[in-house]
């Protein structure tokens, strides 16, 4: 009887020791991984910092203005291109004979022609 109990406890002790070492090993590995990831975070943050400076440099407004003019044919917006919603001509109702009077022709919008760009770029989607 005593022998059985002793045997059981010995087995339990061995099992617990094995489990203890296994857990300890796992914890060590996790700690090492944590330190490694921390270092990677630090390097990434530094890279982001450098990229932010480059982003700011590339976004310099006069440079963008020049690029937009050369490649997209864009000019600064003029007031003639703006209108307010409540001043737009009301939509013609279905089936009505006479269309609503249009806006005064003084506000002539300048002719704008969009260059032939792929749809993704016009909508602002796609890779930058």
């Amino acid at each position, binding site marked *: 009887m005593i022998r059985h109990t002793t045997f059981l406890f010995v087995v339990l002790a061995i099992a617990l020791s094995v489990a203890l070492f296994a857990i300890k090993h796992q914890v060590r590995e996790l*700690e090492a991984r*944590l*330190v490694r990831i*921390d*270092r990677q*975070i*630090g*390097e990434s*943050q*530094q*890279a982001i*910092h*450098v990229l*932010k*400076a*480059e*982003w*700011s*440099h590339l*976004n*310099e*407004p*006069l440079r963008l*203005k020049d690029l937009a003019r050369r490649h997209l044919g864009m000019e*600064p*917006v*003029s*007031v*003639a291109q*703006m*209108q*307010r919603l409540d*001043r737009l001509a009301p939509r013609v109702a279905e089936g009505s004979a006479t269309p609503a009077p249009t806006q*005064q022709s*003084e*506000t002539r919008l300048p002719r704008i022609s969009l260059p032939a760009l792929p749809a993704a770029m016009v909508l602002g989607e796609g890779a930058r």
Partner: protein
Amino acid sequence: MIGRLAQPGRPGSTAATQGPAGASGAGRIQLEGIRKQALETGRTRLLVTGAVFAVAFAVVAGRLVEMALFNEDREPRLPRAARSDPAAVGRLDVVDRNGVLMATSLPTAALYANPRQVIDADDYAAKLARVLPGLEHAEAAAKLKGRGSFVWLARNLTPWQQYEVNRLGLPGLAFHRAERRIYPLARIASHAVGLTDVDGRGIAGVERFFDETLRSGEGPIELSLDVRVQAVVHGELTRAVAEYGAIGAAGLVLDVDSGEVLSMVSLPDYDPNAPEALNSEAGFNRVTKGVYEMGSTFKLFTTAMALDSGTVGLQDGYDATHPIRISRFTINDFHGKKRWLSVPEILVYSSNIGAAKMGLDVGTRQQRGYLGRLGLLEPAAIELPEVATPLAPQRWREINTLTIAYGHGLAVTPLQLGSAVGTLVNGGIHRPPTLLKQQSGASAEGRRVISEKTSREMRGLMRLVVRYGTGRRAEAPGYLVGGKTGTADKQGGRGYRRDAAISSFVGAFPIEAPRYVVLVMIDEPKGTKETGNQATGGAVAAPVIARIVRQIGPILDIQPTLPEEMADAEKTRLDLPQFASAGMSLNGSRGQRRVAQ
């Protein structure tokens, strides 16, 4: 031994264990008692030890269960040394009001070598010269062949260059980490942001004013500048300086309600990334450090103080037929109308005679008081180290009052002028100009200088100047601009130079409910064919204002006034017709002749 005693009569038992024969029975009981006691003690001790261990294991097991099941949120605390702290790069960033980086410190590497460990100096020099463009082959080879154990090869390597040098795999080379201050926007905001020297100390601009905060403070420093507006003003001023052959220019955009400076440009300027090319002329911030006699723009202040103090009303006026002669000075009009002019007409046609007489009526004491409250007699309290004190007369006599009324005799900085005009149009409250971003929406604290009514009248008058007067070329489609032109001859020797002037325009838009003050000052412009050989404020500065307003209006989210709404705005919100009754003809004709009072 105790066990042996249990078997009596065994041969070989020691004498000590044998008691007297008669006492063996009693000895057995006694020894059993002792044995039992010993057994008991032993068992007790075992039990106690066992219990202690059991409790200890129970505690460990309980803690294990607790940590595994109940503490899922708490992270184990690691020693601090294990975590790298990249945010501590050193000097803080400077950003604009929208978060665009204006100044930042980047980690760079400096390359050094140990000549003793160098294998083949020429080979190294050749390879390095290929990778690092600034490195000379001969110079590098000479350094690598030297005697010492340490020699610098190159500084400020970019991360890419560092990678390439590493890839060469040459022993004896090493990197030293350093920091370098970078200004991604280069020239655009050079005067406002400033400069640092080689040791990382701020030596100009915001970099110097906030040097301590940048070294050891919190968070990026948010400036009130808007990079987009700054770029527009910078571009237009550069174009104007080139077009009119000027020696310099200053531009300012101020928020009238908060005093925030949205744009501050001074030309000539420099690239803070290459400060070697900096000369004193380029480093001079004309907006805050240059003091100039601003000329006719001061008539705005004279008119405002005359109206506010009740000295004159809009219906009153002065006779501008003859020039004023005082001791050896003559005050005359430029293209004068030579008749009686009402108060609005004095401003619109920029009459020196009329303004001087009006200033005299206001009186020296009141004039000085108003100018002081407008912030024109003290240096502006802005967050820059380069701020000039205005030049005022030591003894303010009648002649000074006369000349200051039309803008000569008191030299102020463009920043003070812009801020004072902002006070005139925002309802009459003076707010100090600031370069730091303020809380949006909340109007800054200020002190009242003129009444709400006077401010409204001034807004209308400023609109008249642009609509009918000398500021016609400042009109921007869609945005009602109001302001005042100024052409001030520069001082030369004992008198004034005829060939050099400061041409300026200070205005606010949208004038019916002003949000921003825009100021442009061109230093020594020369007339061109387009301007009809004129180099006045109305000819060279006003068109720049129009171009600036047209571009920054959409950026600053200002709703444009549609053409069909303009007449209505002028009538109801600015009440321009009231000026018609004051003799100011609104259709450009010569106006009525009124009896002089």
